Each structure stands twice: as C-alpha cells, then as structure tokens.
C-alpha cells in the first residue's frame, strides 16, 4: 500500500505541469492584457518597451517555456544562456514577486481557514450527532433547521449581518482589517458556518446509515450502553463521508475566500485568486492555480490516508 501512495505522490509533478500549461493558456486567451489601462503611455514605443520587458510580445509557447525557466537564449556576446524563469514576476504588483505575495497572504489564509475548519467541525459534528441521537424529536428538527439555514445563507449575506450586529451596533469586534485575535472572530464564523451546516448534515446521514448496520444490532444485543454504541462504534464509521468532504473543503478554506476577504478587508489569498485574473496578472494567476491545485492533490491524498486509519477494511490496490 505504501507503493500505492508513493505512486500517487509521483503523479503530482506531471499533473501540476499539465495544470500550469492549461491555466497559462487560459489566462492568455482571455481578452485584455496586464497593461490595458485607462491611461496609455504617451508614445507607442513606451508601450512596446513595457511589453518587451515582460516578454509579452513573444509567441505564447516561447513565453510558456520561459515561464518554466527552460528557455535558452543567445546573449549580446553570442553565448547561449538560460533565460531566467518568469514564473515569479507579478505583472500587476511589479515590486513584488509571486513568492512574496504568496508568503504574505498564505499564512493569513491558513490561519483563517484552519480556524474556520475547526469551527465548522466543532459546530457541525456535535450538531449532526445530536440530530442523529435524537432522531425525530424536536432537537433533531431544530438542529436540522439550523444546519439548513447555515447552508442556505451565503457569506455575502451573513458577513454584513454579523458586522451590522456585532461591530456597528454592539461594537464588540472590529469591522475589518487583520492584526489581532479580535479581528478573526467574525470572519471565522462567516466563513465556517456554511461548512458547519454541511458537516452536520453529512454526519447525521452517516450516523443514521451506520445505525442500521448489523454490527450495531449485535452491539445492542450484547447490552452495550447507547452512548457507547453511538460514540465508540457508530460515529467512527459515520464520520467517513465527513472526512471525504473535509479534504476539498480544507483546500477551499485554506486558500481563502474572496467574499469574506473583501468584506472584512483581510489580506489573504482569496483576494489575489480573483483579482489576479481580473488584473490579467498572468504569472500570479497561474502561480495561485498551481498552489490551489497542489493543495487539493495533497489534501485528497491525506483524506485517503485518514480513511485507512479510520476504517481498516479499506485497502488500496497497486
């Protein structure tokens, strides 16, 4: 099975390469370039110089080879030299490299995302458990209603409501910005509540499925206490759908949310993910697509590993 996981790991490289090529083509195919602005330079030569500086006047394939740092060029003295890779140059934020931008934004998105993830699990799992344990009773309906509304109300609506009540009315938390723990609370709720709702629903379904299984009946027949059955035996399998959902969800929350970051003015990756393509900042867009893709691959692999740990019946062949 180790071989299986190693093989999966080895696929990362080619997959990311294909991803980089596709996203590179896509961003360049979109109309409007990084230097299409309200003000054009006084002379066309200035515009040419700008495009030449960033090699945007070259054929697309050549640009891609340069992007990867695999382009060999003749220098003024006639020697062949490898041209520096262009993947790290942001076309919009010309004083920052793509790495600079990711280094600044990723920790912010990671902390916000991780906290939202923990919040979603912390709220969603108990809620789902309660719902399943009190099936058909008012607690089930209340929890299901809460979970459903959490899924239905988007962050776009929830965040301004939270701000209005907790920041503008009661002045408990800041309306935005980033820099202290008090800045984190509202965004975490606004970002995590949706996932909490999804998790609650998934966990409830999982529990109800498992409770019909034969081994649970056996456990009951043996006279085990209901709480022991639910907590020790049922929830361990019931959590599997949540685990498979958690992988992509984690990738989603870790790379930031455009809406939440815009509304709370949080310097995370989500703003860059959307703005870089609006700004036609080709290199940043591709760089972020690769980051997101890599994270998604890694977390899916992690999910499969966790599956093995949770359910010994799961085996991966070849």
């Amino acid at each position, binding site marked *: 099975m180790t071989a299986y996981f190693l093989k999966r790991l080895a696929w990362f490289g080619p997959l990311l390469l294909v991803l980089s090529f596709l996203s590179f083509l896509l961003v360049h195919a979109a109309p409007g370039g990084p230097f299409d602005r309200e*003000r054009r330079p*006084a002379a066309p030569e200035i515009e040419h110089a700008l495009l030449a*500086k960033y090699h945007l006047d070259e054929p697309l394939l050549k640009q891609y080879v340069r992007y990867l740092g695999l382009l060999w060029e003749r220098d003024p003295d006639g020697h062949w030299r490898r041209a520096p890779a262009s993947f790290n140059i942001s076309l919009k934020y010309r004083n*920052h490299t793509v790495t600079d931008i990711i280094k600044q934004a990723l920790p912010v998105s990671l902390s916000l995302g991780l906290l939202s993830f923990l919040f979603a699990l912390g709220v969603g799992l108990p809620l789902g458990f309660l719902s399943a344990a009190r099936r058909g009773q008012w607690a089930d309906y209340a929890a299901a209603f809460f979970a459903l509304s959490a899924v239905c109300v988007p962050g776009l609506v929830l965040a301004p409501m939270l701000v209005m009540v907790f*920041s*503008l009315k009661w002045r408990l938390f800041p309306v935005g910005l980033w820099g202290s723990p008090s800045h984190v609370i509202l965004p975490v709720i606004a970002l995590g509540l949706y996932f909490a709702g999804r998790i609650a629903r998934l966990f409830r379904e999982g529990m109800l499925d498992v409770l019909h299984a034969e081994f649970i009946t056996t456990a009951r027949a043996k006279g085990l206490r209901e709480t022991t059955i639910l907590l020790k035996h049922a929830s361990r399998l019931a959590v599997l759908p949540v685990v498979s959902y958690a992988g992509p969800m984690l990738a989603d929350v870790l790379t930031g949310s455009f809406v939440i970051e815009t509304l709370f*003015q949080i310097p995370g990756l989500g703003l860059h993910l959307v703005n870089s393509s609006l700004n036609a900042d080709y290199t940043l867009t591709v760089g972020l697509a690769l980051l997101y893709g890599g994270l998604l691959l890694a977390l899916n692999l992690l999910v499969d590993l966790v599956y093995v740990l949770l359910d010994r019946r799961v085996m991966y062949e070849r």
Partner: protein
Amino acid sequence: MHPARALLWHSLAGAGLCLLATGCWRGEPAAALAIINGGEPESLDPAIVTLAADMRITKALFEGLLRLDGRTGRPSPGWADSWDISPDGTVYTFHLRTNAFWSTGEPLTSADVLYSWRRALDPATGSDYAGQLFYIHNAEPFYLGKTKDPAQLGFSAPDARTVRVELEHPVAFFLDLCCFPTLAIVPRRALAAGGDRWLMQRPLPSSGPYELVAWRLNDRVRLRKNPRYWDAAQTRSALVDILPTASPNTALNLYQTGAADIIWDKDLMPLELMDVVRRRPDFHNFSFLGTCFFRFNVTRPPFNDPRVRRAFALATDKTRLTRKLTFGGERPASHFVPEGVANYESPPGLAFDPPQAKQLLAQAGYPDGRGFPRFQFLYFSSAGGAKIQGQLAVELQQMWSENLGVQMDLRQIERKIFYNAQSRLDFDLAASSWVGDYNDANTFLDMFTSTSGNNRTGWKNAHYDELLDQANSLVDIPRRAGLLRQAEDLLVNQEAAIVPLYFYAGFTYFNDAHVHGIYPNLLDEHPIQDIWKN
C-alpha cells in the same frame, strides 16, 4: 489515548497555534493617522506608478526638485530651493538645498537627480510615464535608442548642488512636471542592490517626508516620519497607515468605527449612500481637474459623420445628468478642459438644443432618427463611484431616444477588456474620463493628437496637431491660450470627436473637528505630511 497518537495530536495542535499566532497576531503600535486611499497600490516606485492613489503614497516617500503645495496645488520648492529660467523659457537651472540628505544619512546631490531621470528614461525600467520627460532635449531619441550617450541628454549637473535642464521648446508647465512622481529622486544604491524588489530593503533611503516601514498587500502601507527630510519640522503625523480597501461598504464601516480617519477615494464611497453621506459635515467637496465624457469611434459609420456626432452632443442634456445621477457637486460640462485650469479659458461648448440636433441628424440622412442603425454604448463594470457609468448609459439611452429617435444598446464589460476594446477601436460610443496630470490645458488637449495613445477615437486632425504644436512652442501665455482654445473648439464643437458630460468634483471625507491639514485644490493634492489628528 495511545501515547504516540497523543503526541501526534499535541504536536498538531501546537503547530496550529503557532501558525495562528504568526498568521493573525502582529502587536504593532497604532498609527497616528489612518487613510483609506484606494485599491492596493500596484507599485510604490515613482517611475512606475500610474494611478493617482498610488502617487499620493510615492510622493510621501520620494520627492523631486519641486513639490505641489497642499493649499494651492501649485509647484513650490522641494529639494531645489530656487531656480532660474532663461528668457526664452528653454533652460532651467535648479539650485539644490545645501543640507540635503537621504533618510539614511547619505548626502543627496544633483547626481541623484540625473540618475533618477535617466532611469525613468531607460526602456528597461518600463515607466509608463517616461513621456513626461520627453519635453527635455534629446530625451525622446534617448528613450528610443537613437542616441545612446547619456551625456547628450538635456540635463546635466555643473556641480553637486546644481541641475541644468535644457528643453526642446518652452514648456509652460515644466515646473508642474518637476513635481510629478516620474521625476522624483530615487536611491541609486538601493535600486542597484534590489532590482524590481528594491522597495523591500530596510532601511530604504527615502527622499520624501516619510520612510517606508511596512508594505503588505491588501493590508496596509505603513509610513514613518523621515527626520532627515528638509522640511521635517512641518511633518505633522509621525506614523501613518495607508489602508487599501476593496469594498466601498467596508471603507465606510472602517470610517464609522474609527478604524480609519479619512476616505478620499471617489470609488470607495458607496454610490447608493452618496445622497446621505454628502449631507454630513464630514463630506468636503471641491472642484478638481477631471472630466467625464464619452468618446465616439469616428472610424465607424454613422459616427464618421461630424454632423451625427454634433447632433448627439446637442441632444445631450448634461444638467439632467448632474441633477439626477451625480451627488457630489459635479458641474455640467460643455467643453473638455475643466474650469479653473491655470492660464486658460475654454471656448463655449455646444449647448443642449434638441431642435438643432434633430435638424443636423436629418441633414446627415436620418430625419427623426429613421434608418439610424442600432449602436452600442460601451462601459465597464465596477464597484463604488465608478458604478455611475451604468446609470449614465441608461440615462443617455433614454435621452437620445426622446430627442433623436435613435435606439442604443448598452454593453457592459470587464475593465481590462474595456480598455483593450477602446484601444482596438472596437466600440461605437464609450464612457470615458480623464483627470489632469498637471495644472495645464495641455494635459487634456494632447490626448487627442493623432499620435497619442490616449486618443482612442480614430479621430486624426492635422490642423489640431499643428495648433497644439504651435501653442506648446510659445512662451507668450495669452497667445498660447488662444491657440489651445482654437484646438479645443475643433475637438468638441466643430468635430465633436468627444462629448464632455460633466466636470468631476473631488471629495474628502473626514471629521474636521479632529482631522486637520486637508485643503481643497484643483489637483486633489493633499500631501500626507500636512495632515494630523488631535
């Protein structure tokens, strides 16, 4: 719990906490002043910046020979404390201050000025505004690579305290240009060491009233007072945060809760709340050097006919636009160059006159709009103040349907695609705006010369080019103004390549009981060092 598993969980939790601590806890001191300035600055390199909002920050970091006065918006001494101008207006001699130092303590000399200007003229720098230096002798051939020798350039340093500039022809607004960021003095050593990332170095030598402490994208630019600045005694706030903001609602929330002291970006005020906000005492508005207009694509029929274009101009009720749509004190515009510009007065433009408009349209072959092809009005989608473009489009659509009987379609596209379409002349009519770079009619009128990249109408008029060339070679102010007036008359009245709609009004949003040092002026120039909060 199994010991190994317990260890795993504890280390995971520990790692998580460390991450959270580094990710969201900074513990920095609060700034004395926080300003909501605009979007995230593209650059803080004075040779590279193109947006007015970004320039406000670079001006705090890097100053040139002159700077704009915060009260009047007119050029005043910067690193040069005096200057002489030759009688023919082509040679300027600047005298630098005797005790001029970078923020790091190195002496600031005329060699730094030469280096900075040469750098802006180096195509490898990729400066959008390199053209601001083309008025200097041999600067354009140098940029184009026709003259390689920097000694041929029209600026030189006879000694460490003197800069001599020779222009191609008299330039009435050269002192204004000397205040422009492209001509600011930048640190040679930091640039040589840092490449494109030179602004990340600490300490970063600065020539302006502030030093750069931190620059985190979408978070803040933090400025600290530069004690070695020549006018440091007048720098009012020691620590200033410049907050980039993506959403107008967030900007207003930050202001309401005291997290920000000033909002001075038009696009960062929710348009829906403008009517409420402008009645508050925090709202300070003033006229400034900007015009909202629309362009024709004169290469496409039926707009290749000046009579049609004039008919559209005459059928546009600009007062209705400012009364119904804009709330910031904007004034209807019949001409292109805004009122109040230095040494110039525009010719009267086309007034609102539907009968004459109909008559012109009939002459062009479309009586009562019959047979007039459907056409499109192009504008871009945006948040905040710029949202008004969509409302303008709807209003114009209705106005022309009433007054001319023509049917117009609206086409809204993404901003970058919009500018690209404008450049490729892929439009019929396009919403446009222009804000002057300096206080002179030329910053508006030279947009529509045949060779200008900002023309974007397809309109080329040899007589117009000639008038501008002639005007810009004159020292005589009234004669120059006369020629420029003829040119503007050609542009907006006879040929009507564009239709001016209204002159912008600037606004600054702050509580003047607490925040001081912001003065209204035509250039929307509010030097950060002048502002303080008590």
